[in-house]
């Protein structure tokens, strides 16, 4: 119970940090490990991930749409940023080849030509859901993956008092592609793996804007004439790379250790940037459980 409470507090702290303005298709590393079957018999993934997108003094070359009433406002804007906190899981999958010995083996290195089709879903606080099919194929020590994410979200802005309000909102259906690959080294004697991955992905940073006062009533001294400003929807491509730390079980000691199934965990750090001198960056941390 205490552990569950601590976990929830930990996750809520992450959620509180994120403000749900970034949309991108999630990482393919957990699914790659399912396709590899490094933890034989594992079939479920539960992930928590935080993503941050930011751009100071940027010159966005991708699609940028201003949602402000003041159409000129985004031209003067030199900073866009946002973050998100997601819970991801796989719904259905079809993997190849089938794993014959799900109880594990002492020298099991997984399916070197394993692959899979996965249908996954995620929820992001407050009101965003996504569905993303994915394909992964291992070719010896390397794997290739592609996924397309369809997200529908309602994004909230801020009112005159700088408090989040449902009056300023924008509902959007967005799509984002993620193609890439990676490699991983498995230390089977310990049940540890270290991996690198990278690719090209589409990122959206969405902000419906905030309502601010644009004038002052000089008779009363109070601020008047609220107008919606600083809304934007940035859509751009970024190159990214990441490093993965994996722990897993696959030795035939399920019975002896009183464990029902083989399991694994993954910690991934990702960073991304545009290929030119543009300082748009992306940073992510994710924590996954393979069950």
């Amino acid at each position: 119970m205490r552990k569950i409470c601590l976990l929830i507090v930990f996750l809520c702290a992450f959620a509180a940090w994120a403000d749900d303005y970034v949309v991108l298709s999630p990482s393919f590393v957990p699914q790659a490990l399912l396709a590899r079957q490094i933890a034989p018999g594992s079939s479920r993934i539960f992930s928590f991930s935080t993503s941050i997108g930011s751009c100071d003094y940027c010159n966005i070359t991708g699609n940028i749409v201003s949602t402000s009433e003041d159409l000129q406002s985004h031209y003067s804007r030199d900073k866009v940023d946002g973050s998100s906190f997601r819970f991801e899981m796989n719904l259905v999958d079809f993997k190849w080849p089938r794993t014959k010995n799900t109880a594990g083996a002492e020298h099991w290195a997984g399916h070197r030509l394993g692959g899979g089709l996965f249908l996954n879903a995620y929820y992001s606080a407050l009101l965003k859901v996504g569905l993303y099919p994915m394909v992964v194929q291992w070719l010896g020590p390397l794997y290739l993956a592609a996924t397309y994410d369809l997200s529908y979200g309602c994004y909230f802005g801020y009112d005159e008092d700088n408090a989040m309000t449902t009056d300023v909102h924008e509902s959007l259906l967005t799509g984002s592609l993620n193609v890439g690959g990676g490699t991983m080294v498995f230390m089977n004697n310990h049940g540890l793996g270290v991996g690198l991955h990278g690719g090209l992905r589409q990122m959206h940073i969405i902000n419906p804007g905030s309502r601010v006062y644009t004038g002052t009533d000089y008779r009363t001294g109070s601020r008047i004439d609220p107008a919606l400003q600083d809304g934007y929807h940035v859509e751009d491509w970024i190159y990214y790379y990441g490093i993965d730390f994996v722990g897993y079980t696959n030795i035939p000691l399920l019975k002896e250790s009183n464990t029902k199934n083989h399991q694994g965990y993954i910690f991934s750090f990702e960073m991304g940037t545009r290929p030119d001198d543009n300082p748009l960056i992306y940073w992510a941390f994710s924590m996954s459980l393979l069950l």
Partner: protein
Amino acid sequence: MTVGLKNKAALLLLLLVAACLAGCSSVMRPPPAAAYMDSYAKDGAVGSFGLSYYAGDLENGRHENNSYSHYSYAEWWGDVNLASYISGGYFTFGLGYQTFSPFMQMGFVSPYLGLTAWSNMNAIVIPAIKSDERGALWRYSGGGMAIEQIPLNDNWKIGFTEHLSRNGREVYYVDDDCLSIDCKIPVPRPRFYTEVGGGFYVSKKIGNDSRVSLEFRYGRDLDEDRNRFALTLDIWSSTTATLGGNDVMRSMAKKNAKKMREIDAVYADSLRDENGKIDSLHTIKRQWFRIPDSSKTMSLAEHPSDSVTAVTSKGICYDEGSRSVWLKQDYGNTAYRVPVDSFDYCQQMERKVLFWPSLLVGTLSFLPGALATNSGVGGLMIGLGVSVAYWAVSNFALDSEDLVPKVYPELCSEKHSRENVLAWLKQYPCRSEMQSQEAGK
């Protein structure tokens, strides 16, 4: 003793993490080579501690003056190295600290040849963003090294190294008029340079799992044409690896086997009588049983009152011949024997009431929810949602018999007579498979 050491190790780790969070440096020179090479084919992890002394054309004593401040060049003459390496096959991965710089290292390792690369931790937390003045890698130090090792005998090894690296050295920004808040705390800033060089080491075995090495390294600063030397004394030892899933699994299996030996337990699916005939446990609804002592069970023992020790089980059989009862472990797959004279049956298990845990979880979610939404109503909605979700998942998605049982003072307080206990047990005799086969004939 072991617990004390573990606590100290945990405190040290905490201190290191705190030092890292307080402000990591990106200044790094090549790490020692001998401990990395010794990680090959080790079942555990290699933990090393080293001290380095630097000499040669160190950049010291120069000052660059501005109006209100100056840069003081005071390159350090020493470093402390702490590192841990873990190896599988021909691959080794390591994490460590070089004084204030956390770093990672990995590469190929074998008894005679090693190829390794290292980098400070900025590589995994700061994206490589181009800067007009400083290029994309201006926050990183790291490099690569080739190592050739020759074992002379069981005790002595020698090795040769060649490296190419991007090192860092220290520069201090000095606020002469003390205009900034932290002007009195001199924090070193990195200046990077490219170095090429080589060296050699000698290592000796000390004790069963420990070694010590003395390593000399020469490096040529290609940017400023300086010569630097490093002398490193490194000591390391094999420690138990606990990070990997299989390490944990082996440890759990070992603990389980030890406990099974101590309390006469077997795997539930291989329960046998004295003649080697297979018995089977009867499956029942999870129920409480009173046992004499918490040290004689594989299950989690509860003490609803001072005089009562109680466990839950979903499997039972009574072996009349040995006057003992086999109980299945509460959430595992072993069965253990309890003498019938000190055994009693109690109430059926009731799961813990979910209202209070749900309320607690919901309350804990309120504050982060309110912060995230910047609204009290939003926080309340999130708290309520999490609370209801917790209750719903616990209630409907999980098997109620696998949830945490409710423990209350009246549990197992009623004592049954011997006759009642024996009569109750007779409905669950051991060797039931054999009996049913005989009945079938």
